[in-house]
């Protein structure tokens, strides 16, 4: 039995506090604090996860406040879903923190980077362990905050600062929906505990409009955090942050929080088909659209960013079509190979000094470890059996196929082909052919390549627990009474065929005859322009919502200036006037009275004080006179 699961949370937080307060003295050593804390946290988490695999579910909670006799709790729940996330977050997090030691070497704000990473680990683990919706909301905002800090980590760069702001604001839009979702959910059901959300509770509310609305609003939060259409615009810009951040936050863990939330609330979505329909449509749309945008991007990190959005869309689509285990399984495998891809890209950027793929090429010989690990990750995400991505993507396709969403299935299958194409395009452009850069690329230090190797191993084997080879152990672990899974040979064939097709096309386009892409782009210029310009979504937002919002802000500024400020100023002027009058009264009447009293005393005393001559003779004389008078009066009476 695990005695202190709270340690999983507290260790990274302690690291954060230590680095924040002693970072100036620790300097380079602050990385060690963060690494030790996250490794220890990983150890505790693994121990807890192991207990969960034995069939125990840990939960501890304490009441925070009571509303209408309904307790709102703070608690920790480690069930199979949370255990899976704990494993992913602590394991990949630790590797990425180790990798950062090499990547961030020599940065001016080195300790602060590790402080932020530790804070992020704390928030993300808090999110995973949350027992109630309110608690998850708090940590949800905290991870958003960390994401903002880390995207804008190099805030001297204007783009980075703006990207951080964009990410934060876009997330806020989703979070408002999330918050309203929590409110409506609480209003409709009177509970916020995840453990209360089960079929019995929902059975009482079958077809309830309120709960459908609440599910959709809660999904809004997931849309923002997991960069689903139409709030996906922040994620590609978030690539301005340091690459380890992109790997940890914007690929492996934080963006998966939306998927995690939907998986957590899965019974709710399962019970309301309208809501899950929306989830599935948004997911599929996002998967397709982002994969389409990724086809023509030239920035190595932008390709990976769109790929992440696309894969998150996959997970959402799986959850929407009822494949709860498929979605979460893909979340886990994706975390491994996408973290690996980002870290590989970071290694490439670190080694070659450029981020544009047009200036790379031929890096295979100069960076062998990066190349081989990157190739493994590419194979994994493209869905080549028997790597991790194949099993999980196959699960999702099966889920879409079985739930009779045929259009969705075909869209996802085409997306799988595109995924394969753009990933191999990335691989070929970066590592194959002749070098087009001018620098001297070199392999990264061991502290960076070792995490790559570990993640590459993970990308190979992580698919096995959910494959038929291990009897779908993962699916049974996650959902005990899981529907009988079967390998659908039609789906498997399609899956392998699309990924092979993507590989082949990319090979022809970028290795055999590098002139084809140009001619292709000219022939289908319209599609090319759409992909290149990402459907002009940023521009559309700029021209509509942002312009409207800015004019609204301008309007309220004008209102502020002309109405509120003027009222305040007028009040100020009036106050000055009144004080002038009061000043006059003070000076002339009140002070006058006081002075008058003083003047009277002075005048009166000026006569009296003549008596006080200061000569002792006079005083003695008066004394004598006094005595004589007393004597006289006693004698006469």
């Amino acid at each position, binding site marked *: 039995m695990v005695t202190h699961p709270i340690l999983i949370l507290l260790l990274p937080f302690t690291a954060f506090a230590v680095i924040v307060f002693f970072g100036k003295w620790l300097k380079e050593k602050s990385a060690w604090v963060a690494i030790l804390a996250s490794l220890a946290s990983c150890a505790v988490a693994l121990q807890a996860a192991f207990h969960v695999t034995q069939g125990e579910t840990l939960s501890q909670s304490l009441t925070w406040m009571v509303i209408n006799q309904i307790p709102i709790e703070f608690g920790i729940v480690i069930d199979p879903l949370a255990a899976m996330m704990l494993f992913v977050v602590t394991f990949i997090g630790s590797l990425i923190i180790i990798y950062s030691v090499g990547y961030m070497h020599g940065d001016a704000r080195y300790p602060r980077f590790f402080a932020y990473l530790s804070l992020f680990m704390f928030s993300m683990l808090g999110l995973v362990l949350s027992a109630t919706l309110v608690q998850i909301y708090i940590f949800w905002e905290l991870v958003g905050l960390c994401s903002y800090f880390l995207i804008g980590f190099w805030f001297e760069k204007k783009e980075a600062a703006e990207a951080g702001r964009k990410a934060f604001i876009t997330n806020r839009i989703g979070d408002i929906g999330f918050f309203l979702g929590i409110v409506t959910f609480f209003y409709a059901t009177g509970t916020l505990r995840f453990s209360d959300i089960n079929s019995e509770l929902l059975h009482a509310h079958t077809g309830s409009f309120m709960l459908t609305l609440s599910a959709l609003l809660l999904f809004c939060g997931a849309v923002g955090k997991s960069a689903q259409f139409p709030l996906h615009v922040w994620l590609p810009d978030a690539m301005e942050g340091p690459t380890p951040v992109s790997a940890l936050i914007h690929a492996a863990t934080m963006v998966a929080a939306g998927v995690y939330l939907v998986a957590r609330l899965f019974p709710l979505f399962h019970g309301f088909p309208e809501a899950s329909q929306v989830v599935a449509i948004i997911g599929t749309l996002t998967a397709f659209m982002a994969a389409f945008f990724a086809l023509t991007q030239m920035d190595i990190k932008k390709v990976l960013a769109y790929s992440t959005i696309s894969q998150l869309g996959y997970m959402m689509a799986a959850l929407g079509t009822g494949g709860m285990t498929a979605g979460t399984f893909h979340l886990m495998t994706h975390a491994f190979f996408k973290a690996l891809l980002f870290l590989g890209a970071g290694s490439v950027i670190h080694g070659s000094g450029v981020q544009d793929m047009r200036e790379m090429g031929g890096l295979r010989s100069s960076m062998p470890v990066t190349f081989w690990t990157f190739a493994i990750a590419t194979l994994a995400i493209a869905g080549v059996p028997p790597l991790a991505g194949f099993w999980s993507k196959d699960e999702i396709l099966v889920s879409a196929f079985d739930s009779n969403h045929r259009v969705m299935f075909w869209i996802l299958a085409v997306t799988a082909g595109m995924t394969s194409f753009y990933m191999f395009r990335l691989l070929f452009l970066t590592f194959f052919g002749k070098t087009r850069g001018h620098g001297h690329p070199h392999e990264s230090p061991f502290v960076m390549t070792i995490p790559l190797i570990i993640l590459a191993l993970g990308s190979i084997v992580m698919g096995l627990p959910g494959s038929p080879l291990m009897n779908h152990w993962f699916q049974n672990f996650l959902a005990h009474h899981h529907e009988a899974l079967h390998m659908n040979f039609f789906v498997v064939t399609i899956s392998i065929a699309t990924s092979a097709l993507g590989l082949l096309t990319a090979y022809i386009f970028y290795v055999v005859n590098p002139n084809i892409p140009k001619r292709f782009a000219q022939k289908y210029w319209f599609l090319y322009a759409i992909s290149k310009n990402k459907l002009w979504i940023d521009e559309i937002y700029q021209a509509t919502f942002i312009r409207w919002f800015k004019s609204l802000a301008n309007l309220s500024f004008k209102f502020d200036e002309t109405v509120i400020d003027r009222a305040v100023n007028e009040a100020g002027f009036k106050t000055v006037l009144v004080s002038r009058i009061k000043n006059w009264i003070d000076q002339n009447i009140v002070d006058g009275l006081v002075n008058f009293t003083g003047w009277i005393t002075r005048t009166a005393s000026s006569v009296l*004080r003549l008596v006080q001559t*200061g000569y*002792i003779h006079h005083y003695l004389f008066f004394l004598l006179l006094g005595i004589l008078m007393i004597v006289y009066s006693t004698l006469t009476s």
Partner: protein
Amino acid sequence: MLPLSHILIFTTLLFLIGLYGVLTRRNVVGILISIEIMLNAANINFVAFSASLDVSPQIGQVFVIFIIVLAAATASVALAIVLSIYRNQKTIYTDEIDLLKW
């Protein structure tokens, strides 16, 4: 034996001489001497009454001895004060010392 009334007239004159000295002297030492004269006038009164009334002559004489001792003590204190006034004011003439004046 002198009649009591003569002695009283003498002591009254002595007292008035002392009083006159206190009121008119400018010199502080002079004032002190005048005060001593007044005290001695009182002393003589005591002795005279105790001798003539014949009730208990010792009582009056005891008073006198007390007064002489106290006068010596006050004189020493007063002279010390005079000395320190002189040190501070460079004078012991009372009309030149008017610090108590407004």
